[in-house]
């Protein structure tokens, strides 16, 4: 029973990570109808930025996390201005290959710069084990869960209450109509990339103390986050978040009780099963964030 509860906590931690990456992916798809194959690389770069700020510069944990998040926000801005803007009007083939090419360049660039040896970033919280009635949980996991809840509440408030968030939702419903009523479509696209990159980097700062950082961490993460986006119903952010937790929990229970070696295949198997039963995803095909 205790073992089972521990697996559940691990699954929720994994789910938080997938959800923060998948939410960004779904947001991008919702607003600009583009799948960013290099999304996992935002997480990877965020992880290295956090490692550099925390371990090399010795900044305090919250400062290092925020620094990594804002740095990747800037990276998202630069990525939108250079790569995305040139391909937004092109066919999905071009978009997919261009973002895939970016992902390959960033991954191998990271190997050249940082080497293949994983970077460990233990924090005070990740080495503090809380014990409660025999249940042993690293404090960092609770931080991840609390932060994820806060981030998603913030995101919900942002897209429903703020002017920018409302404009993003409007754009996910009808881009032309937005342009007609004077919404600056390019600025909104830019903001979406900054927020999505920031979300991925924030996730990296939260979970890197638990999982190590290595150059090709992004490829599998993009794939799992994308599986969550498909399972959740394309471009529907809340659906993607819910599906991320479903995948995280399934993965953690598989690793604990079935086979550790095949845990990475689970997200994909869940996706195929959902597609066979409900091709439109678990939460319908409601386009719009």
């Amino acid at each position, binding site marked *: 029973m205790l073992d089972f509860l521990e697996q559940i906590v691990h699954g929720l931690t994994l789910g938080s990570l997938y959800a923060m990456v998948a939410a960004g992916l779904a947001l991008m798809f919702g607003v600009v109808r583009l799948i960013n194959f290099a999304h996992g690389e935002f997480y990877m770069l965020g992880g290295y930025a956090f490692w550099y700020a925390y371990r090399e510069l010795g900044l305090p944990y919250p400062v290092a996390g925020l620094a990594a998040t804002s740095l990747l926000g800037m990276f998202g801005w630069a990525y939108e201005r250079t790569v995305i803007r040139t391909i937004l009007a092109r066919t999905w083939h*071009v978009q997919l290959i261009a973002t895939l090419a970016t992902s390959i360049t960033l991954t191998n660039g990271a190997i050249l710069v940082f080497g293949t040896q994983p970077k460990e970033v233990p924090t005070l919280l990740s080495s503090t084990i809380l014990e409660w009635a025999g249940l042993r949980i690293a404090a960092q996991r609770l931080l991840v869960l609390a932060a994820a809840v806060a981030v998603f509440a913030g995101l919900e408030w942002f897209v429903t209450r703020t002017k920018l968030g409302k404009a993003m939702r409007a754009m996910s419903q009808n881009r032309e109509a937005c342009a007609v009523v004077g919404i600056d479509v390019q600025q909104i696209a830019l903001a979406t990339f900054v927020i999505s990159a920031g979300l991925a980097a924030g996730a990296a700062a939260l979970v890197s103390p638990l999982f190590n950082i290595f150059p090709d961490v992004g490829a599998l993460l993009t794939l799992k986050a994308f599986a969550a986006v498909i399972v959740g119903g394309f471009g529907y952010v809340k659906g993607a978040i819910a599906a991320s937790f479903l995948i995280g929990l399934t993965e953690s229970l598989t690793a604990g009780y079935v086979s550790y070696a095949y845990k990475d295949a689970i997200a994909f198997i869940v996706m195929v099963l959902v597609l066979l039963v409900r091709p439109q995803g678990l939460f319908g095909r409601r386009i719009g964030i």
Partner: protein
Amino acid sequence: MRGVRWAVAALVLTAAPWIVGATVADQQRYILHVMIFTALFAALALSYDLVVGHVGSLSLAHPALFGIGAYTAALLATEARWPFALAFAAAPVTAGVVAFAIGVPMFRLTEHSFAMGTLGFAVVTQIVATNWVDFTRGPLCVTGIPKPGLGAWRIATLPAFYWLALATLALVALLYHGLTTFRLGRAFHAVRDDETLAASAAIHPLKYRMLAFAIGGALAGGIGALYVSYVGVLCPGDLGLGLSVNLLVMVFLGGAGSLRGVVLGAAAFTALPEALRMAPTWRMVIYGVLLLVIVIRWPEGIGGLLRRRAAAG
């Protein structure tokens, strides 16, 4: 004129082992090795282009289908001790059947999602190849895969293997031409260019997509079997994402949907890195940037440039 040029090219390619032997005798083995790889990769890139360039489904499952064919042939020839010809014949059949089976859920996805779904399949295949050690020998690799042959007759020398690879390329190119030129080719292109319009003209998109995907997959499996019988060793890493990247670069640099372009792209991207002896990581960084620039600036690749020049001149 065109016929003469083709005949000269065919003659030069067939006589290549002797030409290489006469001109650069000390490097003959190495050059022939690169040429064998070029022919095999050109054939693989053509089989990939059937799916990507002609029905417009951006599959990333090709390395997995290549690998499934390779593992089928390798395991049947070593563990099950089948004669090579039978093991070889089983490879495209298995890969084709698997392609068909994964096509059923995958073609429920469109566009990007199809690409991601097939990538997922490729990742799972590699995970299985690495972890199912009892069956695939995992990271220990399948070794001692016999050379191709029929009965007592074996293809053991390098020139003989070169001719086999060249014949394979010619066969795949012929099949590619046949499949994409006539009535079937027009149906493929109709599905690629406008799915709704094709469907309204009673050209069932799913049927043609599935056909191209299964044939492309079967060909990839066959080429995988030849590849392992040449190399002699098969490791899970051989079916990694790197192969997908190579194929994408070859097809898009050469020009998706163009026989000549894809073969040129494959030749350029097998021979060039060998000639430059680049470190693999640097090579991938350069491939990434190159792919990005090509797809943004020249989405039609070399094939498109050649066509435009031919039209202008």
